[in-house]
């Protein structure tokens, strides 16, 4: 397709006829996106999610709830529209279709409708303020550039993606087992990382201080290129959370994957970086001596990274070093090379925006699909559906035009099928519904009912005692 066609052929570009049905060139543009929002983006599911059960008929539902949520759109030429709000799914869907945002961000629920914030500002007293927000995490692989050698910056590949898998496992387990959260959505950020949305009622109502406490609980990696030590694990033993993360996730990934994947000990430059983390000159010179002489003397088939790692562990964990607390060094090295690195600011404040799931990343054209934390080992960022791939699939299926009577039922509401059911997005949307949305809405409903009953009980008791 020529450039001109791409610019002018907005409406008819994919219905050129069967011969060309599969000819959707790679890439990302507003025309593709328009079709995506028209036929594939799961508007109803997103809106249902953000309503948290308040769109029901129960008298305790807060009708104004979803309308106080901030949406923010980034348009094609970097125009940024903040503080949008929608009272119904059709309002949201129409606005998205009309504006065709390159990126949709979701912000907090405010005390008042964010679109009308100026009207409230007149009354003074600072009433426009965030009151609820999912607890969110943003993990970006660029923050691992000092411990990966395969890619840098925004690139990812299957050699370094395990770092994200580790992050999902460590954080997900702690959110559930330590903090007691249940409704957690993980999503691919579309390019170089993952996002996490913790959606339990009590997570949404956390104060900034409590959010910061959780972020700090997860923080092990301190300092940066300007400061000295990166991971420091003081104390005689590890805190139960760190100990569990180490034995259940970090150690296995480090020894089984990253050591060889990233060739962490294969060259002098790389092993020196690890030796730097051992604060004992006799140990480092012993190891250095062995590794310099050892010009693959054994010529064995064993991976040199693994051989050297075993030697390092043996020296550090031998009886004589144990007493000097050098044993902790092995753990510190593993933590440095594997432990999740969070963008703390995003998690600490209610008013940070985060890209909505199922957006399409403008640089990669990939959809921000949910990731199943229980099967995150299988997630492959290089096979995530792209916009052009989906349109191709849509073209193939669209010709049949037989989906008109297709309907699906979610929580007693009937929705029409959009068209994604024949694309590779089907699996992601099905997962979003069955593993995240349905259990979430069920517990929202219970929460609404139980808070209502409590109130009812209270007022009853009050009347009785009166």
């Amino acid at each position, binding site marked *: 397709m020529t450039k001109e066609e791409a610019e002018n052929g907005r409406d008819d570009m994919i219905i050129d006829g069967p011969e060309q049905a599969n000819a959707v060139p790679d890439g990302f543009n507003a025309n593709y996106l328009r079709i995506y929002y028209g036929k594939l983006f799961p508007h109803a599911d997103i809106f249902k999610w953000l309503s948290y059960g308040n769109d029901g008929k129960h008298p305790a539902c807060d009708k104004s709830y979803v309308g106080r949520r901030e949406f923010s759109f980034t348009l094609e030429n970097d125009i940024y529209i903040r503080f949008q709000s929608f009272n119904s799914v059709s309002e949201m869907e129409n606005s998205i279709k009309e504006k065709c945002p390159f990126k949709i961000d979701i912000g907090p629920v405010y005390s008042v409708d964010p679109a009308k914030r100026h009207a409230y500002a007149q009354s003074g007293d600072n009433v426009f303020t965030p009151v609820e927000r999912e607890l969110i995490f943003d993990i970006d692989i660029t923050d691992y550039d000092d411990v990966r050698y395969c890619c840098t910056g925004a690139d990812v590949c299957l050699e370094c993606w395990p770092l994200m898998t580790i992050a999902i496992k460590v954080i997900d387990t702690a959110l559930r087992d330590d903090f007691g959260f249940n409704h957690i959505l993980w999503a691919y950020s579309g390019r170089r990382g993952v996002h996490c949305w913790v959606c339990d009622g009590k997570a949404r109502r956390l104060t900034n201080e409590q959010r910061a406490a959780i972020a700090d609980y997860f923080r092990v990696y301190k300092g940066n290129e300007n*400061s000295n030590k990166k991971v420091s694990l003081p104390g005689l033993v590890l805190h139960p959370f760190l100990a569990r993360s180490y034995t259940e996730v970090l150690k296995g990934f480090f020894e089984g994957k990253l050591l060889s994947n990233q060739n962490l000990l294969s060259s002098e430059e790389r092993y020196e970086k690890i030796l730097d983390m051992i604060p004992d000159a006799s140990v480092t010179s012993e190891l250095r001596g062995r590794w310099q002489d050892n010009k693959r003397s054994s010529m064995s088939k064993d991976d040199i990274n693994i051989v050297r790692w075993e030697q390092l562990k043996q020296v550090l964990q031998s009886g004589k070093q144990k007493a000097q607390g050098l044993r902790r060094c092995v753990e510190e090295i593993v933590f440095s090379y594997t432990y999740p690195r969070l963008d703390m600011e995003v998690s600490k404040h209610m008013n940070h925006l985060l890209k909505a799931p199922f957006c399409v990343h403008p640089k990669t054209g990939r959809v921000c699909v949910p990731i199943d934390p229980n099967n995150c080992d299988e997630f492959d960022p290089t096979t995530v559906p792209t916009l052009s791939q989906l349109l191709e699939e849509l073209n193939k299926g669209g010709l049949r035009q037989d989906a008109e009577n297709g309907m699906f039922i979610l929580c007693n509401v009937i929705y029409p099928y959009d068209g994604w059911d024949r694309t590779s997005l089907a699996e992601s949307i099905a997962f979003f519904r069955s593993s995240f949305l349905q259990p979430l809405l069920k517990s929202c409903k219970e929460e609404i009912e139980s808070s209502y009953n409590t109130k009812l009980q209270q007022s009853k008791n009050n009347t009785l005692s009166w």
Partner: protein
Amino acid sequence: MQVVRSHRKSSPSDVVVSTLPLYRSAPPLEVRLEDFELFALDRLRVLKGISDGLSRGRKPEEMEKLAMDLLKANMRHPQATEEVNKDIISHFVLRLVYCRTEELRKWFLSTETALFRYRFRSESSEAQRALMSEFNLPYKAVSNAEFESVKEKLGQVARSMGQSLPTADAVYYKVPFEEVPDLVAARRVFLLKGHAYVAMSQVVSLVVTQFRSHLSKALILTNRKWTSTIRDQEKDRLAPIVEALSSSYLGPDYSQPKEFGEISLKDIDQIARTSFPLCMRHLFEKLREEHHLKHGGRMQLGLFLKGVGLKLDDALAFWKAEFAQKVGAERFDKEYAYNDYTPYSCQKIISSTPGVGDHHGCPYRHFSEENLRAALARMGVSSRTMEDVLDKVRNRHYQLACTLTFEAVHGSPCDTGINHPNQYFIDSQKILQSKNGSVA
């Protein structure tokens, strides 16, 4: 109105007397106008000392001693019986002073809470328990059976903090983790399904959370009363005192550029070299080099530049030019568009915690010695001065280290010391302009 006094419940067995007030309600006491101001100034000295201590990164034990010393030095009263009254009166006066803006409330809330924390810590455990019961905390101690089931994990937590294992009669409280954010943040508690197991020695956190949330709400209410009635009623009597008191700590407002008016984009590199403090110079250089700064850095530098007087259009052009090369300008727009933020003070910068890929923070505190040496050398600090600077850093006098650097770079004294990056900038510009002026 209920008076909060040291002698609380007068049950015969209750011999525990704590002089630590909880400030639950304003005292119905007569206060002479001069005491009103004097008491408040004395308390302000205590709070200022606390906030300096925190910004120097003092350890909890050091803070406890500092708090006690400050109280001894400033809060004495010729009549011992009046000390508690002075304590309470001064607290409530400062509530009036510091209720009036978000910024003031934040500072007062965090320093008063810190003061309370260290005072509580220094109480005997009987007194602590008595104070706890006054808060009516709804927590029960963990039962034996439950203790047994998590004993191993509790031991792990204790040992991870370098403490001995809990004994069989150790008392633990099981509370929602939300109530002890500081213990969660430092991983000083065992967490299970949303509950934190809090040791008796840690209940200070529970009490502090209560104290803080009560004070936070009270400040909002006081602010409402202040704007609706008190300010007008007292406009000839208390209001002038109250207004003068708040500026005596927080110093000038750097959110609006004053003296040097506006700075244009073409001069910014030159000005960064001559008049930016190291923290901002570092951020500026990193931005020029990498065309990217993470959130903390964007805020620290962006607000500083705003205070410096970079015109909004220029600022947007500057950030867009830098960012466009890497991430596009949209992220910046949304942050810069917030115009209600004030530039960060040294205290705020020093107490930040830069992580991976971050370049904000105070270089004197957050750089390794090696990196700090290199950075100072690039600023043209001589090796002799450098030793003095590093000596201050080792003693955690980060602002003094910055002051020494300022003096070395400008070859002229800075008597007030450096408290704010924008103050550094203004003082620097003053010196440079007077030098230029004398040459011309």
